[in-house]
């Protein structure tokens, strides 16, 4: 009966000697506590030149925190940190590695509405459709898709493909549908 208390007293006196508390605001967590700090998933950061504005992160975001809004000639990718659950899917899925999660996780702030929490934005210029003038795709996305498609095609028909792509990209979907017979992109000319 008494040895239970004796063991506990020994443990408490050991606790007296070396408290485990980290004086958080003054000193950070020492390294031997967290083995690798850069693994931590914190606030998002768009890489200006790498991100092509394809919106893959919006598709894959598991809590719908990333929204894509196309205005006249600009696509705005907005990450609502208030809704994000920091799962890191957007970082893994991004084809161009344009979005990464910094290890800055202290994001608390004063504010009365969830909406006015910090937002991370990325603006990409869009290419206008020559037929109807509505925005089609971000210019950078078009270039990156073109390079990807071209190095997959065997070199013999590479230049015909790139010519087709040039025509293909000029119009938006509706104009392309209405004009599809006009510039006849299909190689089968038999009928």
């Amino acid at each position: 009966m008494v040895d239970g208390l004796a063991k506990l007293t020994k443990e408490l006196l050991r606790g007296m000697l070396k408290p485990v508390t980290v004086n958080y605001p003054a000193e950070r967590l020492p390294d031997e506590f967290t083995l690798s700090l850069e693994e931590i998933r914190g606030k998002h950061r768009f890489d200006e030149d790498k991100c092509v504005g394809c919106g893959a992160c919006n598709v894959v975001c598991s809590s719908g925190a990333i929204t894509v809004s196309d205005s006249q000639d600009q696509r705005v990718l907005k990450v609502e940190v208030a809704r994000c659950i920091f799962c890191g899917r957007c970082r893994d899925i991004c084809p161009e590695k344009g979005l990464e999660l910094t290890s800055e996780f202290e994001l608390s702030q004063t504010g009365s509405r969830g909406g006015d929490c910090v937002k991370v934005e990325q603006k990409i210029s869009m290419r206008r459709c020559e037929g109807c003038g509505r925005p089609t795709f971000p210019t950078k996305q078009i270039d990156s898709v073109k390079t990807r498609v071209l190095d997959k095609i065997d070199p013999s028909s590479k230049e015909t493909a790139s010519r087709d792509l040039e025509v293909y990209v000029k119009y938006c979907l509706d104009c392309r549908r209405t004009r599809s017979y006009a510039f006849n992109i299909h190689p089968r000319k038999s009928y």
Partner: protein
Amino acid sequence: MTPTVTSFEGALLLLLVSFFLGVLYSYEVRKISARLQYRRGPWLLVPKSLRKTLGTTRLLQPLYDILKLLYKESIIPETARTRLFKTAPLVALTCLGAAAILTPLAGYSPFASFELSLVAVLYLLLGVPLAFVLGGAVSSSPWGVVGSQREAELVLAYETPFIIGVFTVAVMADTLSIQSIVAAQISRYPYLLLNPFSAAAVFLAIVGKLHLKPFDIPEAEVEVVAGPMTEYSGRLLGLIEIGKVLLISISVSLFIDLFLAGGMIPRLGYPLVALIFILEGFLVVSLITLVHTLNPRFRIDQAFRWYLKVPTLLSALGLVWAYSLRYLHTAILWG
């Protein structure tokens, strides 16, 4: 040797010093119980980079809690009987204030030299839990009612060993005034050495009186939200917190007066005696904190049975031991 200033300022000074000692004691309880649990507890010295916003030290953390509560708005439930609800803390405070004036602090006490001061202090200390019972019963929350039932049971449990232990000291010193008890001890030996049984019984009763861990059943925050204090908030809660601080300082200085000769080593000058009194106070409080950190909470029936078993037996043994001392070897007692 001690300045006998029997005036109103003396009493006020004694009250303020006793309150200030109580703040230090409750800071010590929180700090030591935190340090024992591998954590740092309220800062003794705030790190440099935070001094601007969080102040330099947290030694007076209980004082800040009380001040904050005094400035806060107080919500009183409609269904509670407001007049009784408001006066309960005041009753507790007046009892504690009177008791604080009557217990000598390091030998200095303007009023404690009259004959029945020990009985007066005991009565006044008994008034405090009864005031809390009244406060809890009157506040319309079921937790208040259950809390005050438990408080009443606990008072019965720890009062018997407390009273027997204290009167054993009166028997040994053959007087009922605290001042002469202290004087009797100075001339011979402190009663802690002569009669350790009743000292242990009174110590365990004090742990119950202060509602510290093995016996914080009335305010068990998990079972009965805050017991009698559930409905109190703001200023009224501030008064109760002041009461708690005073209670811990009075109990500790009473224990020192009765069993450690009031910290009065015969040949020392006045300032040194006060220092020794405070050190003995911190020693007793650290012992109480060790008991507080080591144990989980008893159930009310377990606490009742335990109090009737161990402390009551100890105090009875102490009483028998005191009488044997008094009649067989009177030399030790009065020399």
